[in-house]
């Protein structure tokens, strides 16, 4: 009942005219960036962080949530009509959706994707509504060692799961942790790693790192390997609605996709790729029309799209309840909370109830807006792809400059923008994952505080770090993430070594 009451209050906040406007701006921007290449929800929110300093936090977060959700919708449009997934969670949609479009069934594919996203987004938001408060209450009993163990789990999972190499994942993580250590130590007041530069005493601004790694790094990378082919657009035909048969074949995949996406999205490094892939595989096994798979099966669009959107909602559960980001976008949302002096976690539900419940209610509102924006306006979104790439990327660089120079008019930030942008370029060329840098930078200072606090309470005894059942389990799971895949591979369950690595293993 308490959740119902809080949600009703949240709707009162979300339905205020100015918050509705922010929800519209967010969903509109989100859909646009989902369609466009080179820009993702993480970068857009990072770029908007300095711009929204004068917006009240509730409005800003309603807009950010709209961007986050909208990007998922926008990604499906380009997957279906152009066979170009706007973001990674839409890859499976492209397989069947584009075939449907080529067969003259693009309208039905777009409709099942949009309605599936709406259904999944709504069910997952109901999940957040009722799951978040008990999880947040659970966090009240967390001790410093539990928080530290939770953050270690986040570090391990993003470093091990993301990217193609554990070592490169850990290097990315420790680069983020190293950058997060710069500045005055919060516990002792000692200046660390500032190299005599007063601008570094407050630490490296998160916006500078986020924008430089994502926007500048991406612009450098794409410029060096630029190959633009004008998009071949499959025409939308058949009216923007589904037949009775389409509905019959879609509703179960929507539900199954949601059931897969929401819990996996809530796991550290769960992401959208695994549930969408699983959903596609399951629908392929369960379908009564196996001959359609590979030729444009509507189940292959409905399930993965629902899983994709449900996973996006799942990411918000650990973020809001424990302050634990499980993806790059969630890490940036956490940075946004910190920008406003807010710390996600149990106290957020008590101290900023209006904001949290307004945000949750806005997810329901945003889903309806996205359904309205996406189906009738699909032609408009696709035209965004015709923006000339030189202007798109040059525009991104100018917005980056606004974001970085606007933070504090610091010359050092411009030097950092260039240096970290080059780092982002190198990371893309040599396949280092970027998300661990962000997670390390954002969670690192918090992890250090909890680590030192736990050891201070335990009078320096390192066993304090595993002295509670929760911390013990979480540390064990973290170590398991590292060791179990290796043991499985040794036992013959893993993949065989890649032939090219074997062949190249002898030094020249």
């Amino acid at each position, binding site marked *: 009942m308490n959740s119902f009451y809080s949600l009703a209050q949240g709707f009162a906040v979300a339905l205020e005219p100015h918050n509705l406007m922010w929800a519209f701006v967010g969903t509109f921007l989100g859909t646009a960036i989902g369609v466009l290449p080179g820009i993702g929800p993480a970068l857009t929110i990072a770029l908007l962080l300095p711009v929204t300093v004068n917006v009240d936090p509730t409005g800003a977060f309603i807009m950010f949530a709209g961007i986050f959700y909208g990007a998922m919708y926008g990604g499906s449009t380009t997957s279906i009509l152009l066979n170009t997934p706007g973001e990674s969670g839409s890859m499976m949609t492209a397989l069947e959706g584009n075939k449907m479009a080529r067969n003259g069934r693009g309208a039905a594919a777009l409709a099942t994707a949009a309605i599936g996203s709406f259904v999944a987004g709504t069910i997952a938001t109901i999940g957040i509504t009722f799951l978040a408060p008990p999880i947040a209450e659970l966090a009240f009993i967390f001790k410093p060692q539990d928080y530290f163990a939770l953050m270690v789990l986040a570090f391990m999972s993003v470093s091990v799961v993301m990217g193609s190499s554990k070592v490169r994942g850990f290097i990315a993580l420790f680069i983020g942790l190293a950058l997060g250590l710069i500045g005055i130590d919060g516990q002792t007041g000692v200046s660390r790693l500032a190299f005599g530069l007063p601008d570094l005493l407050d630490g490296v601004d998160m916006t500078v790192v986020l924008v430089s790694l994502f926007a500048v790094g991406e612009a450098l990378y794409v410029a060096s390997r630029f190959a633009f082919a004008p998009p071949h657009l499959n025409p939308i035909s058949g009216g923007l609605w589904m037949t009775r048969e389409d509905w019959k074949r879609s509703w179960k995949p929507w539900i199954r996709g949601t059931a897969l996406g929401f819990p996996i999205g809530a796991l550290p490094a769960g992401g959208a790729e695994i549930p969408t892939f699983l959903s596609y595989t399951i629908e392929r096994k369960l379908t009564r029309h196996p001959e359609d798979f590979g030729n444009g099966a509507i189940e292959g669009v409905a399930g993965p799209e629902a899983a994709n959107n449900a996973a996006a909602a799942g990411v918000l559960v650990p973020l809001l309840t424990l302050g634990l980001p499980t993806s790059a976008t969630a890490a940036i949302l956490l940075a946004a909370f910190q920008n406003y002096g807010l710390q996600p976690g149990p106290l957020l539900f008590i101290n900023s109830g209006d904001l949290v419940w307004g945000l949750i209610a806005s997810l329901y509102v945003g889903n309806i807006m996205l359904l309205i924006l996406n189906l009738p306006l699909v032609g408009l979104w696709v035209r965004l792809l015709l923006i000339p790439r030189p202007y798109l990327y*040059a525009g991104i660089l100018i917005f980056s400059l606004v974001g970085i120079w606007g933070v504090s008019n610091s010359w050092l930030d411009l030097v950092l923008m260039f240096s970290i942008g080059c780092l982002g370029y190198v990371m893309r060329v040599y396949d280092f994952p970027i998300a661990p840098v962000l997670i390390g930078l954002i969670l690192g200072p918090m992890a250090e505080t909890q680590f030192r606090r736990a050891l201070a309470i335990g009078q320096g005894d390192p066993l304090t770090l595993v002295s509670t059942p929760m911390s013990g389990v979480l540390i064990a799971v973290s170590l398991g993430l590292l060791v179990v895949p290796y043991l499985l591979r040794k036992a013959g369950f893993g993949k065989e070594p890649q032939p090219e690595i074997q062949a190249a293993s002898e030094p020249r």
Partner: protein
Amino acid sequence: MAERPYWIAAGVIAFGLVWLYQASLLPQFAQYAELGPGFTVTLVGGALVVFGAILAFQIYRGENFDPQDAEDVANDVPPSRSALALAAAGAGIPILTMTTLGFVITATASFVLTARAFQSHRYVFNTVVGAVFSLVCWYGFRLLGVPLGGLLPIAGL
């Protein structure tokens, strides 16, 4: 990729060593908090050195480093160094000009250089588009309360 990028491993190790050196200047332990401000710096610096060394060993063993996939990118052709240099100049020019020439001129120069990096040869048109875009950003974001400095600081404007 056949190349063996030992320089990356060297860079990671050097980064870690700088952090370790800085940590050596900080107290590692403190009575009131058990751990001093240098302890975590030591841990992180040490980890970077260790992982840098492991990376060097992996490179020696022939580790693959395939570039990441991205839209508008072809990974099967060699990267264009001139385009990269132009884009890097677009990102780097603010370091030289922002404090003297201000946001509008700097952003216009960045715009033109980046557009050129993306194979656009319409210099005059790009300059006009970049200048208008930069001016709109400068004025619009000032209205939103984001300070972007003077119009032309060197002239006191």
